[in-house]
């Protein structure tokens, strides 16, 4: 580790994610690579027209599990730094719902670490998504069909 860790490695954001701020915080002269992933709110899912999304979380456990995932990624891929922010609340089409960053000496670790984090967050963190459709209905999205951002 090239420097002390600053703040949390996983956050829940009720407001838009300040990507540039987070990138600035992750800057490190030991790093040769930053790989990021953004999940965006898409206008359709499973053939239905989506108007907006609503995320709700179980904060106490989501923060713990999210941090565990990021720490696992740092350990497993030898990352210098990693971070993930996930939105809560009501999001519009095109909004960034989740942002992942992995910083490493070389690109391979950064790509793999970034992929690991988003995959694990989707599987393990207690966050739920409700889709609001053009026809006025809304449904909680099951994992099998939860493809609205990825």
């Amino acid at each position, binding site marked *: 580790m090239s420097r002390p860790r600053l703040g949390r490695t996983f956050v829940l954001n009720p407001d838009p994610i300040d990507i540039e701020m987070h990138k600035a915080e992750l800057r490190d002269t030991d790093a040769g690579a930053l790989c990021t992933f953004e*999940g965006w709110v898409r206008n359709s899912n499973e053939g239905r027209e989506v108007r907006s999304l609503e*995320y*709700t*979380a*179980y904060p*106490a*456990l989501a923060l*713990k*599990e999210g941090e565990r995932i990021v720490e696992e990624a740092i350990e497993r891929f030898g990352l210098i730094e990693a971070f993930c922010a*996930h939105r809560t609340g009501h999001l519009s089409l095109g909004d960034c*719902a*989740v942002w992942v960053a992995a910083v490493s000496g070389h690109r391979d670790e950064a790509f793999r670490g970034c992929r690991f984090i*988003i995959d694990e*967050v*989707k*599987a*393990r*963190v*207690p*966050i*739920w*998504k*409700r889709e609001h459709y053009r026809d006025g209905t809304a449904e*909680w*999205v*099951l*994992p099998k069909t*939860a493809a609205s*951002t*990825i």
Partner: protein
Amino acid sequence: MSTERNAAESGPVAGVDSTSDNGQPCSAGPSEKSVVMEYFALFKEQRGLATETVSTTARTLKELYRELADAYGLRYDPESVSVARNDEFAAWDDRLSEGDRVVFLSPFGGG
């Protein structure tokens, strides 16, 4: 908490073995305890509230789930439901203790 079951409505429950459902009433087990339920997402919608204190004779988390699912019609693909106790993931067979805070977790949909 009522322990009456309606077999026509209840169906199978996640990780709940049927052997414990042998017709023996819960009141024959340990004494009643008080636990705090928190509900999120689908279960919050189905229950119609975010938190409540429940008196139960359930000995394990799965007994509590079966009891509340029957009482409140908390329905979901039972294979997919998991559980947290005191803000950590837990196993269905874990013992329930006085004052526990319990959350039933429907399948996650983050990302």
